[in-house]
């Protein structure tokens, strides 16, 4: 290619700046909404969304939400198109937040399309979204704790799986989910410490160390589940945590079932999001953590113990992943199945990245992943003409889309993944 001709670099540079690409992506969303959903909805079909739940503490009843399907899809498409146009002409300040909004719009359009002419319990799905977002949010929080001090924790999956296993065994043996939760915490702490020792003391490449822990955890839990749980079924029948409705708050329509009528582990997740935020940005410890993650040498020259900070943070990250692991068993059906975490730990990592390494951002991102996941389950009820396997792909595909849409911009802690070598 002769220099000076209109080559790909030139085209990309002159005509395809990142802002424009994003704008085009937004427009593609609009087109997708119109072409995928609109033609398949009969004119005048209504989508009926139930806002009341029938289980748990019944909130104050509200009328169902009934929307005209075609018009709503059309409108959602218009919103997406408008956002695309705005992005192309003016540009938004926070394109990644916009991507989140667009994903939600797309999922809503999908929902309206699937519900057209039928009825669907929206509150039920939202409540299920929170539940499905919970392990992902634990993963994201665990990631925040580790990566803010610059240790990449790709072992969240393995930590969750191991904790899910130990929590079930201990809870079954003792008959108390609290002992099970404690076992999960201990398991998470131990694995967090193992990762920390490998990454800090032995300076093993952090992704490889994490992968080793994952493989080890998958192997060990499957191994023990084959050799023990198949023989001792009684060890795989744990009492689980029951939803605890908060008086009054649980009665709020829609929000009540989502946030105030959930089990202990979900409440712990909510609390951890807030606590992590406060610690990270408003305490001495958080300031030091962030400094260690951004510029360990600077922290070291000010007398901050870089290694100790990392050990503690990664161990706490492990504990959080451990509690997340207990959710799969004690927060759910109370039994362990092989590889039951199904990539939730990794999705949690993606949520952390999407949330720009902040606890609140990570929580919001988890919510979107949870939405995709919940939708996929509920769609089976509506008998959508899409093979279930493809619906099952949804959370993973959303993760890929989100990662590729935002990472170019999100800035990780500057020292992320690099061992600190003290002379």
């Amino acid at each position, binding site marked *: 290619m002769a220099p000076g001709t209109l080559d790909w670099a030139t085209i990309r540079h002159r005509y395809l700046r990142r802002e424009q690409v994003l704008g085009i992506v937004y427009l593609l969303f609009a087109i997708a909404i119109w072409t995928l959903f609109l033609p398949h909805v009969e004119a005048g079909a209504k989508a009926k969304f139930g806002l009341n739940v029938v289980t748990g503490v019944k909130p104050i009843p509200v009328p169902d939400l009934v929307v005209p399907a075609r018009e709503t899809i059309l409108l959602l498409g218009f919103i997406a198109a408008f956002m695309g146009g705005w992005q192309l002409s003016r540009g938004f300040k926070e394109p990644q937040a916009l991507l989140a909004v667009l994903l939600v719009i797309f999922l809503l359009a999908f929902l309206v399309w699937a519900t057209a002419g039928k009825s669907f319990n929206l509150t039920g799905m939202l409540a299920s979204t929170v539940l499905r977002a919970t392990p992902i949010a634990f993963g994201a929080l665990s990631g925040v704790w580790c990566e803010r001090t610059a240790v990449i924790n790709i072992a969240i999956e393995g930590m969750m799986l191991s904790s899910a296993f130990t929590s079930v065994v201990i809870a079954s043996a003792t008959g108390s989910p609290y002992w099970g939760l404690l076992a999960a915490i201990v398991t998470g702490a131990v694995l967090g410490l193992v990762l920390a020792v490998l990454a800090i003391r*032995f*300076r093993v*490449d952090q992704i490889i160390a994490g992968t080793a822990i994952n493989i080890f955890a998958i192997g060990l839990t499957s191994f023990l589940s084959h050799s023990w749980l198949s023989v001792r079924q009684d060890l795989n029948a744990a009492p689980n945590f029951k939803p605890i409705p908060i008086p009054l708050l649980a009665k709020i329509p829609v929000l009540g079932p989502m946030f105030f009528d959930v089990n202990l582990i979900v409440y712990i997740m909510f609390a951890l999001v807030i606590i992590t935020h406060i610690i990270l940005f408003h305490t001495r410890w958080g300031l030091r953590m962030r400094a260690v993650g951004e510029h360990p040498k600077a922290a070291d020259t000010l007398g901050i113990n870089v290694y100790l900070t990392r050990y503690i943070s990664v161990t706490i990250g492990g504990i959080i992943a451990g509690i997340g692991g207990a959710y799969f068993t004690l927060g759910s059906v109370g039994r362990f199945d092989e590889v039951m975490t199904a990539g939730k730990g990794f999705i949690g990592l993606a949520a952390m990245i999407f949330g720009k390494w902040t606890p609140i951002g990570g929580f919001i991102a988890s919510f979107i992943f949870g939405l995709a996941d919940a939708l996929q389950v509920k769609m089976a009820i509506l008998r959508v003409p899409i093979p279930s396997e493809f619906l099952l792909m949804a959370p*993973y595909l959303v993760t890929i889309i989100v990662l590729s849409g935002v990472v170019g911009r999100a800035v990780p802690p500057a020292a992320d993944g690099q061992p600190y070598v003290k002379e």
Partner: protein
Amino acid sequence: MSTQEKKRQEHNKEQQPAEAAKTLPWWRVVLDVALLPFLAIITALALSSIFIIISDTELLALWRHVFSEPGVVLSASLKKLELSYGALISGGLGNPSAIWDGLRTWIQTGDSTKLITSLEGIDRTLVYSTPYIFAGLAVALGFRCGLFNIGVEGQLFVGAMAATYIGYSIKGLPMLIHLPLALTAGALAGAIWSAIAGLLKAYTGAHEVVTTIMLNYVAFRLSDYMLTGPMKRSGFNPVSPPVEKSAWLPKLAPDPLRFHAGFFLALIVAYFVYWFLWKSTWGFEIRTVGANPNAARYAGMSIAKNFILAMAVSGALAGLSGTSEILGVNHFMAQAFSSGYGFDSIALALLGKSHPLGVVLASLLWGFLRAGATRMQSAADIPIDIVQIIQGMVIVFVAAPALVRMIWRIRAIAEEGETIFTRGWGT
């Protein structure tokens, strides 16, 4: 010399064993290269004894009396270990006296049945190691470009699906056309699948570790769909129709042995990967991007192109891994046809130091472990997942030589755990 310089030197001293090796005597090279993996395996096997013991609930119950009757407990445990490791070795290598016996009978009487049965262990080892070689090469090639392809398992599924489809849907072709066609389809499908991750990495910065893992799940669901839908054989089970004989990798040993031409194909491909990485300009670029992407850019190489190329070649190798399994052993595809070859491959690449020769040796070892573990499961009732436990430990030990040095109190092991693949999540 600035301290930073010094640090970087320490970092990089061991990254190129091949080049650095030229200045050392050969025995030091062998020692340097082989000692660590050897000790890592030994340590992992030794530690797995613990898991063997706790896997046996009766034996575990016996351990409560370890203080009152230590002799009984220990002898019972040792017996269990003897049984287990005995099964491992005979499962992977066979019984030497049986082989000798078989050989004698064959020479004396011309009756080969005894010999053939006695060779089953070695046969299994070689057959198991075949997909390992491909998969290990896939990860190794990625490592050389600074990419961590954890998606080998998914690429392997996709490759197997494509090869299976070509294998059963086209009928009446001569083998000389059908077999290469099916192999190419498998490689190509794997390449395309993993090139997605390469493309995303190159143009959006999405980290390949997360995207390849997500693509794994998508691939699994896709194969579920294909095997219960479009590719389903008539009948109840979600399996594909059988592959036409013309697409089989030729079998090179009589039944019940399974040894097939895939093994030799794997060796040829391993040599090709060596040539590609060290004797071609493409390989030079890939290795440069892996060793120092900034310098690669300075030297006029396209990082994006090399990411995509390396991922595609890596995916092609992964695809061949699944393909060789389908065309050489199974001859049809089932939902759980792969027993985690893709994940094992990470350990293989690390153990083999991302060098094709190392990968081949590590794969042979792993084939042996897998063959032995299968026997261990039937003979000593030890779940086959023990292989994964050993794997996790081996990865740790290989990646943290200081740990092995600490356990074995050996200084000769070179420090080299500092090779950094991780470059954060962004660029």
